[in-house]
């Protein structure tokens, strides 16, 4: 027999409520739990701290361009494997799995579009496709769409997101820095406006070429922008990097950005900018 008898009702075991999958998301910056539909309405920015979530080309098309105006071009340009590159897995396999998992055909999407009725050439990089890395195809598609802008005498707007050059194409990738810059030299001579929007992250070969060559260089708040990645710098100098280092605000302060624009205002500001030219 027990000495004590429970007189009150036992505390009921709570059944842990799982967050319904896909309905809520946590802001990586401030920890706020955000309702996904609200996040979408906020153009994938945190309503509390303004953190800009990484988004893809599809979302940027919706946010920036006139509805239904985007027409993809140069989809027929595909990666080869010129060096038969094999690391932990063959490059061709890596590409195949990327096509499948992302539904994209490369780390850059190019096409023609309109902003407030004005024709533009448009490119947007896809960070989830091998880190937005630039190989021969990114270089060629960049070249083709820039050439399109030149031929049609229309502005060229690009959204950058890239970890740098694609290692699996080695020296070919490195040469894309020169290739993309060569066509930008042509654009400059023909007064074709070239507008760059740097998003999180833009580093390496992309920042060291067309990313830093815009007539106007815009960034999203908080975007990591630099030449070397923070990890490489930490390994080299063997100390922790200061808070905010290489973030858009830092880069602006040091004079390498024209302006930072919140995603909500991007389209409207672009219209004003395009109207100036």
């Amino acid at each position, binding site marked *: 027999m027990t000495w004590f008898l429970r007189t009150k009702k036992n505390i009921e075991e709570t059944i842990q409520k799982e967050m319904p999958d896909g309905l809520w998301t946590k802001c990586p910056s401030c920890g706020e739990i955000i309702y996904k539909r609200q996040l979408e309405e906020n153009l994938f920015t945190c309503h509390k701290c303004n953190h800009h979530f990484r988004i893809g080309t599809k979302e940027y098309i919706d946010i920036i361009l006139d509805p239904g105006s985007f027409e993809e071009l140069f989809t*027929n*340009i*595909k*990666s*080869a494997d*010129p*060096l038969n*590159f*094999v*690391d*932990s897995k063959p490059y061709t396999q890596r590409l195949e799995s990327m096509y499948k998992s992302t539904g994209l055909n490369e780390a850059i999407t190019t096409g023609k579009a309109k902003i407030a009725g004005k024709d533009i050439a448009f490119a947007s990089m896809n960070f989830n496709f091998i880190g937005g890395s630039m*190989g*021969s*195809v990114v*270089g*060629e598609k960049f070249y083709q769409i820039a050439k399109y802008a030149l031929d049609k005498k229309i502005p060229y707007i690009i959204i950058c997101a890239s970890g740098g*050059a694609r*290692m699996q*194409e*080695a*020296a*070919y*990738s*490195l*040469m*894309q*820095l*020169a*290739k993309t*810059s*060569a*066509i*930008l*030299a042509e654009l*400059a001579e023909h007064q074709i406006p070239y507008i760059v929007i740097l998003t999180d992250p833009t*580093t*390496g*070969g992309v*920042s*060291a*070429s*067309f*990313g*830093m*060559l815009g007539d106007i260089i815009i960034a999203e708040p908080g975007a990591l*922008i*630099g*030449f*070397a990645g923070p990890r*490489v*710098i930490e390994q*080299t*100098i063997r100390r922790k*990097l*200061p808070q905010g*280092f*290489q973030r858009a605000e830092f880069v602006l302060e*040091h*004079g*390498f950005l024209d302006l930072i624009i919140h995603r909500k205002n991007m389209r409207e500001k672009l219209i004003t900018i395009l109207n100036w030219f």
Partner: protein
Amino acid sequence: MGTKLILDFEKPIIELESKIQEMRQLGETFDIQEEIINLEKKVEELRSQIYQNLTRWQRVQLARHPDRPQSLDYINNVFTDFIELHGDRRYRDDPAVVGGIAKLDGISCIVVGQQKGKDTKSNLLRNFGMSHPEGYRKALRLFELAEKFDKPIFTFLDTPGAYPGIEAEERGQAEAIARNIIRMCQLTVPIIVVIIGEGASGGAIGIGVGDRILMLENTWYSVISPESCSSILWRSWDFKEQAAEALKLTAKDLKEQGIIDIIVPEPIGGAHRKPDEMYLILKEILLNELRPLMSIPKKELVKKRRDKFIQMGVWITE
């Protein structure tokens, strides 16, 4: 000469050479002249056999050999009347990049090179050939000088990469490299680029756009060093040999890839074995390459240079 760095694959040669040396001393008392001659022949054979069959990683090691001639060596020995010009006129003088006015066989030109040190002290001064933004901007203002006075440009690439540091980022490393690359696509004077040691990534191509790209036989040029490639793709530093193979980064590879125009042969055993011979070889090739470029109309020269880089890359059109 102090103690020289001997690479693993050079050991059999060095051993034979010292044996010959010993025998020569003995030869003063015994008649072994014939054997010495035989051994010397053997050394020659061994040398050409070893150096013709180097792996890519072994070439990388040769490219980094501390005794290899460096930018200032080539500038001082291939050119005449060199006057070094300092500073970027913006921030400071970056010792990792050297440059100035010089003459090549009487032709006035601008020379710019990435400069490593020869020992710890000079390497610290030169930051191991890793430039800051001001190094690129120094190069740029020298390019502008060349453009203004219509003089050809020679650049020498020898860097493990642009410096990845806090100050370099603060002062716009990416912008400095990007600016040089596009400007080199616009300059109307002939530009000849020579890879003399290591050509690592954006740091190298930051002074590497030109009408003719030359690469010394035992050098490498790629998007990343084999070590860093190993650490990123294999997640370990131990796969540098495999990474070097995968990157296909030697002069022969890059010629096959259509990225460089000419492989500059080195004396057997590498440029550092017979630097004087190396200078003569390079001088002759530079002159041969420069002369035809000087007669191309400016507009055509620039167009050709842009088209050359625009064609680079391999892709499939479906």
